[in-house]
């Protein structure tokens, strides 16, 4: 433990807390990982995202995902999150705008069997056995950094953690029925949610008192409700919604839960959008990638595989006022073999060296050519 080094400079010392050793298997509940500063994490269902966020979703926090109205990629995140909760047998509450929210459960992905899964962690650039090497080999020279970063963690621990804490999901197969049926899952229609927005959750869900609860909410399409009302009730609804989110935050904090809320920021007015963003502990946004964008294809490698961008705006922090600054905050969402969801750092494509000074390639840290991407 680094003792407060500022014995002389009273009150001005800057110590950093010692990291608590990662305890893989002695967590109090399945699927919970402990971290430094008394933090406990739940997996988001996407191992890459857990790594980026420094462990996973913090328990007691609210995660907000800003959708892109062009594409439903936020559902990928939501499904992974819910499937992970089901696999870990954690109670689930799900609310959505559809008529039968329970049907959404049928779209959850199954756990990928390890034989088929080609994504093996901790492998060097050359040793991947499923044939990826051949196309990757040509790019080794300037994508090396991507592989080396992951090898720092010890392989054994990594594999153990992976089994218990977060799973890869096979998006082509639906989650086994028996898992869903055995599960403590509740789903709410949006009307129930809005009508009694302040009291609905504590009263209608008695299982909230339990130790480990995961909650997912899909508020994104609530604008359906808005269309039929005039301006006054619209304003009312805005304030009700923010108030509800605030109460939700208090409840999540008190009850060991994690709430994931997705919303389309185009529907809310900009000031309410900012209010929601301030309420989030972890804030992510998804942007869809247009299918054929020559500019982007020239700028990035692997463009053909990408389905969207994930941008991390805010990362939840517990017991600390220091903001979390990530090395890179925009990642590409890719579907490996149409099966598993992967998040990768963006890599700038090699520039054609024949015309003028050559640029150093590698992971991009500033946007070039005035593109709208903010790497």
């Amino acid at each position, binding site marked *: 433990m680094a003792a407060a080094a500022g014995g002389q400079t009273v*009150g001005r010392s*800057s110590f950093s807390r010692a990291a608590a050793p990662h305890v893989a298997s002695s967590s109090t509940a399945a699927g919970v990982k402990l971290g430094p500063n008394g933090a406990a994490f739940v997996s988001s269902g996407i191992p890459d995202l857990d790594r980026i966020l420094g462990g996973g979703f913090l328990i007691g926090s609210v995660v907000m995902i800003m959708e892109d109205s062009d594409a439903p990629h936020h559902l990928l995140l939501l499904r992974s999150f819910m499937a992970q909760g089901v696999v870990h047998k954690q109670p689930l509450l799900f609310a959505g705008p559809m008529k039968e929210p329970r049907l959404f459960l049928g779209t959850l992905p199954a756990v990928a069997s390890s034989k088929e899964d080609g994504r093996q962690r901790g492998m060097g650039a050359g040793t991947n056995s499923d044939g990826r090497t051949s196309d990757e080999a040509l790019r080794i020279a300037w994508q090396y950094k991507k592989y080396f970063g992951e090898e720092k963690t010890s392989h054994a621990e990594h594999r153990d953690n992976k089994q218990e804490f977060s799973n890869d999901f096979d998006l082509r197969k639906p989650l086994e029925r028996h898992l869903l049926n055995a599960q403590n899952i509740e789903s709410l229609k949006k009307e129930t949610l809005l009508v009694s927005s302040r009291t609905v959750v504590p009263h209608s869900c008695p299982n909230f008192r339990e130790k480990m609860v995961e909650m997912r909410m899909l508020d994104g399409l609530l604008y359906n409700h808005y269309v039929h009302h005039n301006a006054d009730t619209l304003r009312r609804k805005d304030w009700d919604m923010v108030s509800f989110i605030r*109460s939700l935050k*208090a409840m999540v904090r008190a009850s060991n839960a994690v709430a994931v809320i997705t919303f389309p920021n185009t529907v809310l007015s900009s000031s309410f959008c*900012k209010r929601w*963003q*301030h309420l989030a502990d972890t804030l992510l946004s998804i942007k869809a990638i247009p299918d054929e964008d020559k500019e982007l294809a020239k700028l990035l490698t692997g463009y053909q595989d990408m389905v969207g961008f994930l941008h991390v705006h805010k990362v939840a922090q517990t017991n600390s006022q220091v903001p979390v600054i*990530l090395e890179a905050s925009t990642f590409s969402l890719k579907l490996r073999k149409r099966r598993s969801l992967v998040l990768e750092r963006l890599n700038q494509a090699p520039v054609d060296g024949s015309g003028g000074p050559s640029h150093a390639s590698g992971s991009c840290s500033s946007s070039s050519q005035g593109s709208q991407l903010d790497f």
Partner: protein
Amino acid sequence: MEEYGGGDLLSEAMGSGARVVVVEDRVEARGAFALHLLLKRALAGGGAAALLALAQPFSHYDRVLRGAKGGAISDSFVRLYGDIQRAIDASRTGDNTGRFTLMIDDVSLLEVAAGGSVDDVLDFLHYCVTLTSEMNCSLVFLIHEDIYSSEEGVGVLLHLRYIADLVIRAAPLSTGLAADVHGQLSVVNKCTFREQRLKAQRIWNFHFRVKENGADFFYPGSRY
């Protein structure tokens, strides 16, 4: 604010004698660290403080602000104000010299609690301001300035800026995120206007970096 220990830029910028301090921040550059700093300074000077923490919810305030079912929000605010006055009186009995500091984190959430009723919120804030003259109290409000950047809801922000003696504004760097510099702070000190000190600096701009238990303040480029 009582001066404490601070040879740092923020203390210099703040000076002393400010009764109403407003801290503004944005999503990209959050200002809660400034509240923590000011709270420490308030307590270190031998004073007492009350923190109305709405952003990190305490269940007590949740109950108070929701009001009894059906009660008007103005009643809840009245009750809240009563609680604050009682807290101040309680701290008065022991120690008479210390200054009392009331901190509100944050005003945007007061608005949410009031269901968008800006009038109620402003009434409440003005009542709090009366405490500064009556009861030797200082106020610190945190407000999110990016919520009010559109035309619709500028009201509360402008009011606060008007009544403040000191405005501390946290903003992100225009160049984006950085690990060494978390943002820039601009401090507008209106007390110096009143004191008619012609040479006194009124507006300060510098960078900050948040640490575990404090923050570093430095002019751009002057960090070792």
